[in-house]
């Protein structure tokens, strides 16, 4: 790789120097960071003494690649982690030093680290009855899973921003300008957060917020853990500081001065994790802890056309937006070469736009021989149906794809649903309320999923004939010859094997934990030849996630006060949509092959550049609309919020505009050759739409003279 002189100077800077490196995305900062790591290792710095800190796992890939280089020197391992990883490790190790900070009832009990879903479950259990009894949150309509998510989010913000968890409600209320009758929801949110926190303290249960708080506010003040960290990690490399939180920044402000070398890297105009407490302004404060500041200014990604486009978009988004983004005519034409868009004839309906995207992607791959890995399709929000529509269109055209998407509820996964239906059928002793009991449709779906090759018609027939309130009836009991023929003996025999297994389990009457029951069922029946999981590896992955989740649920719950029927509770949780299918491809670095389909934010946070980007539905207002989160407020709960200020409509407009500007610029800076804009007048549900992003591009797209049209149509001859 060709490195610039400025990158080289960062990489080879002598030990003893602490550098603050900033610049826009695409200027080669992470390449310099990874190069610096390689340089340290090659020049004999012990890997044992190097810490690479990143804001989230996906950002670690370039560093992991260096650390795992097969040709690298023999030695110890570089530690590459996040603040959360570090906090958890340190709290786990030095727990006895701080145990008195939590439980008075069980001071010696070892802590239990709670996963996000365990937090949701405990809230469901502890807060659910309280919310019902006291009629909390009665002025907002929001499902319980999201409500709990926002309560957890508030606690996390308190920990990472560094304000007392008891002041969440007061902060939110003070900044609220809405209707008086909605104010009480912040008090309710505070009461719920405090109740949950108290419960965690009593049983030494550590959610993310408590882990960070214990580490940053308590352990870090003890000499031995602090010395163990500072003494060991003498060389620090921290990337994407702007995506990290004030807690990390404070820790580093005390750590960096005593390090032997440090490279702190900060992206300008980013901060995409603001909603998780990231703070790009507090990141800049770390300049003080460094010996020098270096700014990278030249993009190493974008072509001239892309640069012109970025300038045009920035111009169009500025307050004094001028025609054509304020660009000179020649620059405007240049910018136009970096844009493709849905032709008017195909931009009326959402499905037309999707067809156009699929055609263009296939054209790039087939005709222009572009490697699919160099193309990404981005949406503001990537729901299941959109993802499915795109994947199937691309597959029809022979294009491989892979998806990065946030986790979704386990109940949405047919494989998980089927396993839970079978678990319910095998456990009549759970005495589920009617709404949780499997209905005929559940059985039909389950049969389709678990009997390999079974079609919908036969599945419905089988559910109708063989499912009764008492449970599944044997196929051998079907005496009607025509019916047997329609179902077929092959499926009948498989069905009977499954049923016999469930029957034997029921008769044995052994109390077996749900996760172990599911593992046995999976191994002994469902993944055997002829059954649905035998060849379906994605279904097996979902099954594995469900089982892991059920096990961690049991293990966490077993240590907590009351005894309750865990299987029954778990089944209710899945039904309520509280539990999620956490899907994270393990080999992030290599990345699966194919065209990536992702939400725009997720792509931005994976910090990589591609040649071609497709932006779906730029008419959609979702490109600049914050998620509806009535119980929390990322700006008000940030370190930058001034006490006494009130969040107004003007703030909302300004912040959404600013975020849109950052997202658009961030995406363009990660694009080498061309952006394809997906236009569709009506959205997926058929509603007419117009969003701010469309307006911005209209500045650049409107009023072409015939001569200009010719130029625009010419290939993007760019170096």
């Amino acid at each position, binding site marked *: 790789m060709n490195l610039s002189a400025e990158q080289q100077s960062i990489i080879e800077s002598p030990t003893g120097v602490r550098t603050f490196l900033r610049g826009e995305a695409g200027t080669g900062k992470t390449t310099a960071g990874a190069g610096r790591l390689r340089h340290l290792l090659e020049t*004999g710095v*012990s890997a044992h003494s190097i810490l690479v800190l990143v804001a989230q796992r996906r950002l670690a890939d370039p560093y992991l690649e260096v650390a795992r280089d*097969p040709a690298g020197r*023999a030695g110890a391992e570089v530690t*590459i982690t996040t603040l959360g990883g570090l906090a958890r490790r340190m709290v786990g190790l030095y727990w006895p030093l701080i145990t008195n900070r939590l439980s008075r009832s069980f001071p010696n009990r070892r802590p239990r680290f709670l996963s996000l879903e365990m937090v949701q479950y405990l809230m469901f259990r502890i807060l659910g009855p309280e919310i019902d009894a006291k009629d909390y949150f009665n002025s907002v309509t929001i499902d319980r899973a999201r409500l709990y998510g926002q309560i957890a989010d508030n606690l996390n913000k308190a920990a990472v921003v560094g304000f007392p968890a008891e002041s969440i409600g007061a902060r939110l209320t003070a900044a609220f300008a809405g209707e008086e009758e909605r104010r009480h929801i912040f008090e309710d949110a505070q009461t719920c957060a405090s109740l949950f926190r108290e419960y965690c303290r009593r049983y030494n249960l550590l959610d993310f917020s408590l882990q960070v708080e214990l580490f940053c506010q308590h352990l870090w003040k003890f000499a031995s853990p602090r010395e163990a960290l500072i*003494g060991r990690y003498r060389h620090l490399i921290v990337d994407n500081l702007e995506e990290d939180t004030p807690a990390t920044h404070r820790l580093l402000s005390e750590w960096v001065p005593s390090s032997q070398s440090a490279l702190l890297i900060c992206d300008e105009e980013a901060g995409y994790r603001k909603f998780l407490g990231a703070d790009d302004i507090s990141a800049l404060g770390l300049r003080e802890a460094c010996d020098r500041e270096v700014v990278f200014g030249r993009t190493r990604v974008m072509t001239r056309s892309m640069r012109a486009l970025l300038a045009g978009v920035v111009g169009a988004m500025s307050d004094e937006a001028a025609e054509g983004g304020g660009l000179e005519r020649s620059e405007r034409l240049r910018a136009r070469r970096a844009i493709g868009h849905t032709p008017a004839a195909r931009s009326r309906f959402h499905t037309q736009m999707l067809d156009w995207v699929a055609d263009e992607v296939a054209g790039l791959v087939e005709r222009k021989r572009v490697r699919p890995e160099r193309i990404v399709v981005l949406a503001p929000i990537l729901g299941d149906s959109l993802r499915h529509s795109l994947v199937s269109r691309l597959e029809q055209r022979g294009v491989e794809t892979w998806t990065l998407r946030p986790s979704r509820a386990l109940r949405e996964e047919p494989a998980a649903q089927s396993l839970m239906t079978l678990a319910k059928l095998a456990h009549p002793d759970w005495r589920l309320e009617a709404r949780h009991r499997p209905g005929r449709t559940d059985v039909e779906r389950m049969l389709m999923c678990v009997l390999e090759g079974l079609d919908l018609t036969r599945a419905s027939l089988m559910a109708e004939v063989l499912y009764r309130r008492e449970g599944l009836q044997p196929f051998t009991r079907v005496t009607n010859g025509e019916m047997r023929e329609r179902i077929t003996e092959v499926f009948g025999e498989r069905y009977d094997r499954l049923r016999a297994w469930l029957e034997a389990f029921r008769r044995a009457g052994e109390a077996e934990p749900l996760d172990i029951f599911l593992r046995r069922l999976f191994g002994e029946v469902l*993944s055997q030849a002829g059954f649905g999981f035998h060849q379906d590896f994605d279904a097996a992955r979902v099954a594995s*996630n469900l089982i892991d989740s059920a096990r961690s649920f049991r293990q966490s719950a077993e240590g907590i006060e009351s005894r309750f029927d865990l299987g029954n509770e778990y089944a209710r949780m899945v039904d309520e949509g509280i539990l999620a299918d956490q899907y994270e491809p393990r*080999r992030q670095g290599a990345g699966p092959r194919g065209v990536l389909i992702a939400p725009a934010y997720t792509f931005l946070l994976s910090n990589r550049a591609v040649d071609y980007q497709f932006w779906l539905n730029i008419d959609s207002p979702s490109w600049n609309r914050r998620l509806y989160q009535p119980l929390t407020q990322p700006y008000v709960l940030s370190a930058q919020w001034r006490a006494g200020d009130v969040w107004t409509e003007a703030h909302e407009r300004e912040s959404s505009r600013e975020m849109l500007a950052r997202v658009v610029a961030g995406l363009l800076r990660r694009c080498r050759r061309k952006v394809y804009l997906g236009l569709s007048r009506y959205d997926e549900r058929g509603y007419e739409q117009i969003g701010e992003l469309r307006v911005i591009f209209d500045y650049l797209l409107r009023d072409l003279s015939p001569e200009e049209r010719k130029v625009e149509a010419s290939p993007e001859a760019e170096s």
Partner: protein
Amino acid sequence: MSLPADFLFSQSALQDYVDCPRRFELRYLRELEWPALETRQAREQEEQARQGRDFHHLLHQQAMGVPVEALEATIDDETTLRWWRSCLGWQEHHLPATRHAELVLSTPLAGRRLMARYDLVARMEDGGLLIVDWKTGRMPRAALLAGRMQTIVYPYVLASAGGWLSAGRLDNTKTISPEMIRPDEMIRPEMIRMIYWFAEEGRTIEFGYDEERRRQAEERLATIIGEIGARSEFAPTTDERACRFCRYRSFCERGVEAGDLSELNEAKADESITLDLDELEEIAF
């Protein structure tokens, strides 16, 4: 499916390959998640693994300087308490003061990278290094243990990547360039020993090391790694007994029910714990 360039070999991955190439492929190359049971007594197996993990964690905490009394107060089961006390007694007489717990080392070999995660590496007064591996499973015969990948990989990686420990370069403030490591600071294989300490019995099995063993290990490991890199097909094992304790049994159409925990090969009894510890790196995030 071929091996990714940055594949990190560990003793458990190599052991899987030696036991069954197909299992290696399914687990490490295809990363196929297959949640079937490995033994019939899943609860018991899980409990053993938990005790093993807790015990390892305690010893790691101890090595990090957490007071012994404070640690003892956190132990809530008799077995772990017995192991813990027995271990403290053994440490007092057999371990020097300079200890590194949960150390990870790696070395290039045959165009790939081979890593080892040590429970403990202690530096003896004469600069020699003692590898200690805590075992909470059943104690196997020494001959069986000698042939396990762990016994081959751990001393080999330490000999290749642990010179700085032997040289006493624990002072991280210094930068060590290759030229600065004097030949006498490189670890000679003869200065390495490996001890497995068995919690239940309070006894050890010890292996010495020398240049001949190191050379043999290198040859064997390089051959296996080279073979894996060159393969595109991974055959299932011919020893079908192994399938009874393998989660991929149904995938390979090698049986229905999991095997009995009591019949699990003695050297493998500890494996689930070893695997968990190998995978700790992932949890670091």
